[in-house]
């Protein structure tokens, strides 16, 4: 199977004055096309550090990193920007949407930094991405007019709009309640079933069960890396007690109707 990500003996050290924090201590793994990987571990185990390197926001202190066949270790800051722009989609815990800016314009953002995309194509692709995440009818809403779950969907649409080889999510469900988390996981599963490769950082085991492989970190080392039996987030969602407190979002409603 096609290898999307390959890391070899990856180290990351932070120098804090005289002290050196070794956040990653020489880890190696590969992620293949179509995988849905969860990266787990306790707080401080190095998950975010790893994800930042995978996302080309940070560079390893030592070791090799290939994304889509390109060796990243020797790239300049500008070249890393281009990799992020063309090959990677980020989803953050705190959504990071531009305030007072419509969902559509938020989703268009990555394409503004891509010269090969015309303004018509930009709009079209943003609309498609929003439709994929079930927000076709919320395009002109600003973040403060959207729920947390909807804001995270906009962020996912933004991550999808450049058609990346890899989606990276750092605690993407960390700010959401159980039902909304399941909805987001269901969306990720749906994207994964359509072929998107996803790496998902979480420290919640009941979120990790929706992925197909778990890499467990402890103190900067991989302690476990195994395929798991994937549970359907849809099914889990259906089993949740229906409560009036929960408002099923429009996107999910559409899916049920279909």
């Amino acid at each position, binding site marked *: 199977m096609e290898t999307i990500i390959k890391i070899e003996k990856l180290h990351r050290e932070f120098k804090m004055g005289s002290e050196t924090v070794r956040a990653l201590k020489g880890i190696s793994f590969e992620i293949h096309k179509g995988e849905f990987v969860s990266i787990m571990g306790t707080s401080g185990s190095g998950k975010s550090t790893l994800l*930042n390197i995978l*996302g080309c*926001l*940070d560079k390893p202190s030592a070791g090799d990193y290939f994304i889509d066949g390109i060796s990243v270790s020797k790239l300049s*800051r*500008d070249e890393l*920007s*281009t990799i*992020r*722009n*063309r090959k990677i989609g*980020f989803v*953050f815990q705190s959504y*990071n949407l*531009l*305030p*007072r*800016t419509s969902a559509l*314009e938020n989703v268009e*953002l*990555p394409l*503004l*930094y*891509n*010269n090969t995309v015309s*303004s018509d194509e930009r709009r079209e692709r943003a609309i498609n991405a929003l439709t994929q995440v079930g927000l076709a009818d919320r395009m002109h809403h600003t973040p403060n007019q959207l729920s947390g779950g909807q804001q995270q969907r906009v962020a996912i649409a*933004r991550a999808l709009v*450049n058609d990346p080889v890899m989606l990276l999510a750092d605690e993407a469900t960390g700010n959401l309640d159980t039902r909304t988390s399941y909805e987001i996981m269901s969306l990720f599963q749906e994207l994964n079933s359509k072929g998107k490769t996803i790496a998902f950082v979480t420290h919640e085991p009941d979120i990790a069960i929706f992925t197909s492989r778990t890499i467990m970190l402890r103190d900067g080392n991989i302690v476990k890396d195994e395929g798991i039996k994937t549970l359907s987030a849809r099914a889990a969602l259906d089993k949740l007690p229906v409560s009036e407190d929960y408002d099923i979002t429009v996107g999910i409603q559409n899916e049920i109707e279909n």
Partner: protein
Amino acid sequence: MKFRNHIKIAWQALLRNKTRALLTMLGIIIGIGSVIAMVSLGQSSTKGISSEISSMGTNAVMVMRASQTEGGVNIGSGNVQTLKATDVEAILAGSSNISMASPVVKASKQIVYGANNWPGAISGVNEAYLEINKYEIASGSNITADDVRNSAKVCVIGKTVVDNLFKNGENPLGTVIRLGRIPVKIIGILESKGQNMMGMDQDDIVILPYTTVQKRMLAINYLHMISASAVSENVSDLAVADIESILRRTHKIMEGNDDDFEVRTQQQILDMLSTVTDMLTILLAAIAAISLLVGGIGIMNIMYVTVTERTREIGLRMAVGAKNKDILTQFLFESTILSIAGGIIGMFFGVGLSFTVSTLLDWAFVLNIPTIAVSFIVCAAIGMFFGWYPARKAANLDPINALRYE
């Protein structure tokens, strides 16, 4: 990256905070507005002076008493008593370049008519004075050579004096008014001339035979001034030279000693005035330029705060692929758009202000295109200059730290 995308990004960012954008521009608006208004008004007033020159003619020549120094201290011209009526005759007789001349004796006395009174600015002159100074008689008649010879108690008054003494619309002609203790008959009324360039009311004037003022009011035998007119504009310099040599002779001033008088042409006085207004214009424009500078610093200030406040936004932009120079360009564009937009608004504001003021003051409105063009360029430069530091700070942020920023 495409220029259009840069503009779009900066524009969207500014629209997200319209109030702040407007407040940031305020400094530039006021700065550019005042620079343009000051320069434009300065030029209007200078232009007003030159049109005054052409309306008055440059024939007028004035002889004033020189100021004196005593032990190195300037004690003014008050003590100089050497200017005499015979000098006027000598000038008229001795120079073919002078067509008319009149003695001038100034006095101020309270004018009383019935229950009304008015502080009168009295000019004791001869029958030629009105023509020399381009006054016209509206009704009645001018003082005559006979009136001068006889120290007649007659006067010609300006419109302001009429308005303040004859409030019920009586006909002033033939009426006797009192100047201090002396009763004087009004024989003529002047056509209104309005204000002169220095804002002095030229209609607030009482014309008497100078002999009357000398003998009956002040008890002096010298003059304060001589007002003369050259034959033509071209010979006014010759006229000045003539007067100087004649007066040095009549005043018996030895070779090498200073004149006890000073001769000025109308042109010189107006030139001097222009120099003063030019200097004033430069001064005001300089002050306005400082306010423009303060406006620029205002932009820098706000942009700096903005960068800190939008750290996460910057981190996000970097995460989705913005290069350092894209971020730099975005913030530079933001500050430049702000300053140029502020400049354009300020331009309208400045032009409007100078138009209003020159209309109110009855000055010619001058629109100086080079000033406006230069201000525009200065604005753009200010935006880039003061935007540079905050923009660089934004561009040098580390994406991870920026994303994590609380």
